[in-house]
């Protein structure tokens, strides 16, 4: 076990040093893009995700919780990928067959499909939960009451 860890660690340190040696002489901008997104993630993305999860946990029934989490996560990823195509002050102009789609409309349609799936999944799960409750069984979705959202992410 120990030799394996040592070999992996040494290989890693060598690769890290090689990459650092290549990156060191590059423009300072590289450090901004190295640290910027990581800080943005810790200082904004994750706290906002935590607060949204908390809001979902407090304001919705368990049946809706995970569909809503999926909707929020998928929306964030779609919006990020859309930004790379739509916000282009530093981008190459579109060319025949490349970056020439109607990205705003396509993004809105995709988000509409995602949220339609979220609503459908939420309704189905809520109906299943109601039926099971009506049949006298334990509400099956109660076990999901303390997942991701239940913390107080006040950062």
């Amino acid at each position, binding site marked *: 076990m120990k030799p394996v860890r040592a070999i992996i660690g040494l290989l890693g340190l060598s690769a890290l040093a090689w990459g650092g040696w290549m990156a060191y002489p590059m423009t300072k901008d590289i450090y901004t893009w190295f640290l910027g997104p990581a800080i943005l993630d810790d200082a904004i993305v994750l706290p906002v995700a935590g607060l949204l999860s908390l809001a979902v946990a407090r304001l919705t029934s368990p049946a809706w*919780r995970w569909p809503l989490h999926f909707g929020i996560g998928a929306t964030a990823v779609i919006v990020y990928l859309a930004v790379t195509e739509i916000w282009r002050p530093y981008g190459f102009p579109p060319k025949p067959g490349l970056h020439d789609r109607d990205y705003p409309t396509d993004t809105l349609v995709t988000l509409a499909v995602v949220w339609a799936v979220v609503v459908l999944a939420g309704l189905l799960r809520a109906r299943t939960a109601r039926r099971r409750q009506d049949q006298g069984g334990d509400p099956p979705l109660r076990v999901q009451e303390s997942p991701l959202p239940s913390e107080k992410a006040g950062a």
Partner: protein
Amino acid sequence: MVERKGRTVVRRATAVLSRDRVNALRDRVFRPETRLGRLKARTDRLQDKAFGLLRFKSLVHDPKVTSRIGSWLGIAFTICFVTGVISHFIQHPAAWFYWPSRPVNLYRITQGAHVISGVAAIPLLIAKLWTVYPKLFERPAVKSVLHALERISILVLAGAAFFELASGTFNAAQNYPWSFFFTTAHYAVAWIAFGSLLVHIAVKLPIIRESLTREKRREIDVSRRAFLRTTWLTSGVAVLVFGGSTIPFLRNVSALSERSDNGSQGLPVNRTAKEASVTTVDSSWRLEVVGPNGTTTFSREQLQSMRQTTAELPIACVEGWSQTANWSGVPVMDLLEAVGAPQGSSLRVSSLEKGGLYNSTTLPGTHTADPLTLLALRLEGKVLDLDHGYPCRIIAPSRPGVLQTKWVKRLEVIT
């Protein structure tokens, strides 16, 4: 004797770096009666108040969840790294490097896998960081020198991972809001990312092994499983909305695919003739082929009168998009034969384009010996558009699009 001395040195070094030593040093520096000590006490009280608000009770902040997501993230990053290094060496070949010309879709698959695994890794990275988010606030922030090094290595890993994903996705969109040269920076930081990933695995291996045992996997309850499924689904959505760039059956589903069907002759154009300053090519154009017996010239009519081969080959861009088309033209091996050059010779291919990073490329012997490597004159049965490289272009199997030189002017046998 030497060994004993070595052990003593290691023991002393470990003692110096031990947690107790660090704590003792800290206590000495921040003695309560000193100004520094009082400042620290005040800061600690403020921190306690602030961190009191943070109560991470979620079940997903759990090594079992972290390890599951981390495994997939590790796989995605390994695919990205290996395929990226392959692409680098195809473009900057070392003497020992060999890249086959078959299967014809090989580069399309490796580069498609590179971009798709990168996009899939975005939700995985954020979900993984969420599972370990409480550790960011753990106190004391630094327990020992080794602990400090471990925290710094995680910062390097996260920074490099975000750098690769952010710069890669913006590059796929040909969008460059930075001043560094993307290709070299992305390549250098890839080594940092993969290296720090290996260091992280080496440090965390016991926890990873413990968390991924069958017993521990059985302990993953409904809510943790739901979190994992949500993460997989979100990664799946990222692949769906982007993957149509390279996966044919997703073409009409992927809203954020780089490519559309509006390219000239049905094929995207990455570098237009206007960008390359190739405005017109008249009938005086001649292809120069420099062989062992001097230079031979060919007019377009002469090239058309030679044996023509039609092949279905992909254009596979380094930025991830790819598309197959039917190309017709003269096999490069026939041109080598016509000028008396040995089969399997490497060729330097020069374009009419004056500037640009890729106006001259090298076609290795493996590819010139492949009968499907063409000096293409026609695309889908029609004469090449100027945007696609009229009067002729190179199209070879399993090669990056940037090396499929357009507006070819000269071929030079170099070995």
